[in-house]
């Protein structure tokens, strides 16, 4: 039974890790701040969820599982707010998003 | 090669120490000096903690089921050193605020122009 759990946690962790790396790479490959924000939110959401679940599977006491859950709760609860305020603040400071559609595509 | 691998903590200590030292000396901005000072103090904290490491010893906080701990003394000392560091930084920032009120700047050379006090 715990072999199965081990493999499952291993899978979660690695996939979480992969998603993290993707997000990081996205930070570089995307042209402007707003697009990078999307890439970053990948690392914030699914990657964190997977990694924490992976860790919970490895935990050796109920207390640890509860605490890991709390950590996950805080991150998923705060990440949208911080992303929103980041974007809003950038917008207000006059940062124009890089738009791909035909008409007003700036240089 | 184990000179580097085996003692990589202490290499980090030295790098941090010299960075902090450089910032304190080279940077004219008073705030950056305080940052440099903090980096300098952090390097010492890392030195003490790495000195305390016992082979596969856990963090020196008593928990059931854990037998081998790292040496708690340096950790305790570093608590004090951190407190001292915080106090020094707080005082330094308070001074910087007063200096800014008096001189209108936190740049050493601008202050120096006013009455050659640096």
């Amino acid at each position, binding site marked *: 039974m715990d072999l199965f759990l081990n493999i499952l946690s291993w899978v979660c962790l690695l996939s979480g890790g992969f998603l993290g790396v993707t997000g990081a790479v996205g930070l570089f490959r995307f042209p402007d701040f707003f697009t990078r924000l999307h890439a970053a939110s990948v690392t914030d959401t699914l990657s964190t969820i997977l990694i924490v679940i992976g860790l919970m599977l490895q935990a050796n006491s109920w207390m640890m599982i509860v605490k890991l859950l709390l950590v996950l709760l805080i991150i998923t609860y705060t990440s949208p707010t911080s992303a929103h305020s980041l974007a809003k603040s950038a917008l207000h400071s006059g940062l124009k998003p890089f738009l791909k559609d035909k008409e007003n595509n700036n240089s | 090669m184990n000179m580097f691998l085996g003692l990589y903590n202490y290499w980090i200590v030295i790098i941090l120490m010299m960075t902090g030292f450089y910032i304190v000396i080279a940077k004219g901005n008073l705030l950056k000096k305080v940052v440099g000072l903090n980096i300098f103090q952090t390097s010492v904290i890392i030195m003490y903690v790495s*000195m305390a490491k016992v082979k596969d010893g856990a963090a020196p906080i008593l928990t059931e089921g854990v037998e081998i701990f790292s040496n708690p003394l340096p950790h305790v000392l570093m608590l004090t050193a951190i407190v001292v560091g915080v106090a020094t930084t707080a005082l330094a920032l308070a001074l910087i605020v007063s200096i800014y009120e008096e001189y209108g700047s936190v740049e050493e050379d601008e202050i120096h122009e006013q009455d050659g006090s640096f």
Partner: protein
Amino acid sequence: MISNNLPALQIVLPLISAPLCLILFRPKLVWFFTMVICLATLGISVELLSAVVNTGAISYEMGNWAPPWGIELRVDEVSSFVLLIVSLIGAIVILYAGKSVEREIAPHKQTLFYSAYLLCLAGLLGIVITGDAFNVFVFLEISSLSTYTLVSLGNDRRALTAAFQYLIMGTLGATFILIGIGLMYMMTGTLNIQDLAGRIPDVLDTRTIRASIAFLTVGICLKLALFPLHLWLPNSYAYAPSAVSAFLSATATKVAIYVLLRFVFIIFGVTFAFEVMPMGTVLMLMSIPAILIGSTVAIFQQNIKRLLAYSSVAQIGYMILGISLASVTGITSGILHLFNHALMKGGLFLALGGIAYHMGAARIEHFKGLGQTMPWTMAAIVVGGLSLIGVPLTVGFISKWYLVLATLEQGYWPIAVVVLVGSLLAVIYMWKLVEAAYFNKVDEGEVVVKEAPLQLLIPTWLLIGASLYFGIHTELTIDAAQKAAEMLMGAGR
């Protein structure tokens, strides 16, 4: 109950009363409270000194934790002597500060001054009395932080920048000391100074210990402002309130020298520090320029507090020169000058405080005609100056005598000449003041200045009087310094 845990009381009393100051709101009340505490502290250190003289070194374990875990307070020949100096100066300066602080520090900051003053006193006493190396660092930071605050209370805005500079260099110094202590702990596993002294010899020739002594020396030399690490001192003493300059000049650097003696002689031992490691040459190479450059720069200063600050740099050079000779006479001269310089320099700064009390600052132009308008203050400055020069019948002469004797014992007669030339330079910058005061008439436009108030004069003359008294009746000081030197030289291997 009280008598057997006096060592703990020595630090705890000022430490606790520092926050208590903030409760009593009226400055006069706070001053009185602080004075009572300082006098009590002085009482304790006198009691400790007599105890040490009768029964030898006292060891006191804080909270009954035996070393090396618990912190041991150790009062021996050297520390009891320095304890007395610090608390004596502390008591005299606080008597003085009541009036002087009224003019020099804004009312709302005065309570802060007294609180920081008590903290500084507690810190300094702590450094001297503690037997635990890391504890030295902690008390060092307590005293240093309160010192930066005290310096920043000066009414000239440059006090702020001076305090900031002092903070940066002081913290660097303290951190160097922390690194040194860490390296020692790494090799010996103990922080208690007596234990360290026991265990260091078998790890002496390791690179870590050499690094440790190097870090410690540089850190401590920064704290005691030995040339060329003295850059923070002139501005700090010049722009700090007069009471602060007096207190610092007479105690802070002295305690740092005590720490140097404690670490180098008791922990590392003379043979290692002075024969294996070039401690003697290093300290001498730093102290000789300290004497010459310190005094020469002092001559050209317009702000007299800065003049005295540079003179302090030179006088510290004398003390370290004595110690660098690593002989009983040499260390005796160092420790003697520790006490003597505290008296004369403290007195001189207090006298300048009297001038600043009336004129707001102590620059050379304020000295015009002082001979007539403030005769007693000016007389104090002349006597203090003579003691600085080292004229016979003053304390300065006594320490200079032993220093020259120590250099001759080692056969370095050129260094003896350097010491004497240093005194000549002192003649020049002191006579600059005498001529300004006694030969110029007060030009009519000047505000009518009268003698400094009694509350300023009495402490000044207490110190200046002492610098004459101990120039003649020297049994107490020479005996204490001699015993301390023998203990230090003997302790080392």
